[in-house]
């Protein structure tokens, strides 16, 4: 088995990231947005505006209690909100990052299986993140309308949105690559490398052998 070298991996990975993200930005972005919209259509109603922004309709069941201004209680069935194209793009960019990580590891044939499985898994993750994001946003709007928004709930929603938008799209490709690529995982976590205990015992055996040899002489 060829040894993984971190510096080599970093160099290849950086070049591949620049190449694949440029390809994604100029050629793959529109088809990927189309596929994401089609796939997310089963969970959220999405319409694309001429500007490229998305209008989402999320199903939420919530009762808005009666107030002084509105004497009758109302039932909310769905919440509509818009998402800028620049925000939607975040839910497609993890895939080229994942490809770059996998292709940066040596061995074309060895990378084929994690590449295919990972592509499917990453697509599912991106779709899930979009649906979760839409759900969190819609529940926030519904809570605001119902006047039932507490500080704790607001913080949890903010925390959820932060993870879904700022952390998971960047971290997930690396986590999935480490989960699916055995050699990469073994190299990064130094699995299979001789540990201190084993190395010491090896040295001990060697010394014993040397002593036995010198006694024989």
């Amino acid at each position, binding site marked *: 088995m060829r040894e993984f070298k*971190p510096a080599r*991996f970093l160099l290849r990975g950086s070049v591949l990231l620049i190449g694949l993200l440029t390809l994604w930005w100029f050629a793959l972005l529109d088809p990927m947005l189309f596929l994401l919209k089609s796939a997310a259509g089963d969970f959220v109603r999405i319409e694309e505006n001429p500007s490229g922004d998305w209008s989402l309709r999320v199903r939420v069941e919530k009762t808005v209690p009666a107030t002084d201004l509105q004497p009758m209680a109302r039932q909310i069935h769905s919440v509509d909100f818009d998402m800028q194209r620049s925000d939607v793009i975040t839910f497609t960019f993890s895939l080229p990052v994942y490809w770059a990580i996998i292709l940066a590891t040596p061995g074309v044939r060895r990378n084929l299986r994690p590449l295919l499985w990972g592509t499917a898994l990453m697509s599912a993750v991106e779709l899930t993140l979009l649906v979760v994001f839409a759900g969190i946003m819609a529940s926030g709007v519904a809570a605001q309308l119902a006047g039932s928004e507490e500080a704790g709930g607001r913080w949890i929603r903010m925390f959820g949105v932060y993870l879904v938008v700022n952390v998971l799209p960047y971290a997930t490709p*690396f986590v999935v690559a480490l989960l699916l690529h055995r050699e990469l995982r073994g190299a990064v976590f130094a699995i299979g490398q001789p540990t201190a205990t084993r190395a010491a015992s090896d040295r001990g055996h060697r010394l014993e052998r040397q002593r036995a040899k010198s006694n024989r002489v």
Partner: protein
Amino acid sequence: MTKLRPFRFILIFTCCVLFAFGLLLTPPVQSVDVRFSRTLVKVAYCLVMIGGGHATRDAATLRAPGGFGVEMRDGCNAVNVTILLWSAVLAFPAPWKMKTLGLAAGSAIVQVLNMMRFISLFYLGQYSMTWFDFAHAYLWESLLALDTLVVFWLWAKRAMRPRASPDARI
């Protein structure tokens, strides 16, 4: 040295990540975060001036003479990748001395790279906003995450490296 137990690692890593990001979003830590960003912009300003460039500084914004300004907001100060690195280091079975070394050296390397990122974005934004958006939100972020993975890899390799034990040094 104990062997890496995958489930233990994943559990501790996930707990550390959730705790640290939760803490990051609390008001007291947010104010520290903003002050940290301002300090980083101050350092970037000094580096630009030392390098013979022209810029002005306004709180957490670095401004070019042409009017273009780049603000270091939450997330632009590499706190996110630092949290991921710290969580991985803390979850890894290594002696505390090695962990401390990993946390300190790893954070320093990440911050140096982030400074390069910030200054390069400052110049890129003056040239093209399209390229700035692409590099800012996607390219540099993922390059920084890749660098962080390699920093962890190098540290883990060092942490697992066999050392001479007293018994073997007869």
